[in-house]
């Protein structure tokens, strides 16, 4: 493998992690998962609804995709820890995408509860992947307590606003000793490419794919954008210049002095 993505000792080819939130049906999810090329996908934990037909886990495992449960909807460290423990029991994985949000309007992470929950879950043997603010200091603190990655937001969940503070993402990437996964805020393919160009190791996308008019087509666009952005980051872009720099030779033009 040319450029593997290693996360908590596991090796992935794809750097696009797909979230399943917002899909209109399991059929749509299946097509989008296939087109995305994702090898890791998130699910939420909710009370059993006796009326539900079909299991999202069947669709995901049939595709050979690894399940990453999350703690979406939790407002306190205590609820997040219990939800993570339930997810571990239900899905036989110690990986958890840790979300502890502050309010339902912004869905922004509650930094204090998040750090508390992260520490408790690391102590309990979890591989903790925290959804965090685009705050380099908090990202560093999460890494210090033993998180296996940091997942800063580009913008609020589901907003499609793109990466509002590229400089902070740049600082997080520069200082991180664990993988950085841009999580939340992606609206379209160019946002995903920018995340990778900034040096992120992967991108997590749900709404931008699942709520697109043609989810499978957007999933393919995101796959290619993540690949293109990663290649560009590795290739090393040219410096930005204030004035032009000719790419054609300056010598030997018609009428020039020899």
């Amino acid at each position, binding site marked *: 493998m040319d450029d593997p993505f290693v996360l908590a000792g596991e090796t992935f080819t794809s750097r696009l992690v797909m*979230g*399943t*939130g*917002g*899909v209109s049906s399991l059929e749509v*999810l299946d097509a989008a998962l296939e087109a995305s090329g994702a090898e890791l996908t*998130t*699910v*939420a*934990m*909710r*009370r*059993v609804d*006796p009326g539900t037909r079909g*299991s*999202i*886990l069947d669709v995901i495992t049939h595709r050979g995709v690894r*399940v990453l*449960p*999350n703690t*979406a909807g939790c407002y306190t460290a205590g609820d997040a820890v*219990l*939800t993570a*423990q*339930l*997810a*571990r*029991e*239900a*899905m036989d994985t110690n990986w958890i995408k840790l979300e502890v949000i502050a309010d339902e309007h912004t869905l922004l992470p509650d930094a204090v509860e998040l750090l508390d929950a992260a520490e408790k879950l690391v102590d309990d043997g979890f591989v903790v992947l925290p959804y965090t603010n685009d705050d380099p200091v908090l990202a560093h603190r999460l890494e210090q307590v033993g998180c296996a990655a940091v997942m800063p937001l580009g913008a609020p*969940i*589901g907003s499609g606003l793109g990466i509002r503070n590229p400089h902070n993402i740049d600082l997080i990437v520069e200082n991180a000793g664990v993988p950085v996964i841009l999580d*939340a805020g992606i609206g379209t393919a160019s946002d995903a490419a920018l995340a990778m160009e900034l040096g992120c190791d992967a991108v*997590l996308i*749900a*709404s931008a794919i*699942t709520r697109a008019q043609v989810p499978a087509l957007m999933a393919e666009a995101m796959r290619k954008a993540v690949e293109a952005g990663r290649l560009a980051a590795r290739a090393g872009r040219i410096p930005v210049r204030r004035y032009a720099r000719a790419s054609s030779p300056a010598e030997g033009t018609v009428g020039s002095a020899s």
Partner: protein
Amino acid sequence: MRVTLNGQSRDVAKGLSLADVVAQLTDAPRGIAVALNAAVVPRGNWAATTLADDDRIEVLTAVQGG
């Protein structure tokens, strides 16, 4: 006896086990987890766990989510 199952209060027979309660909600062979009074009970212990008055039971599964 009264217990709270997934946030809803309900009357259940004495001697009912966690396994009995889960079976009333779902027949899914996997992907289910149960908490009794905010502590996870492993699947292997459901049948041997008898409910008591005022128990709070949460039965969760995976759904779509970011």
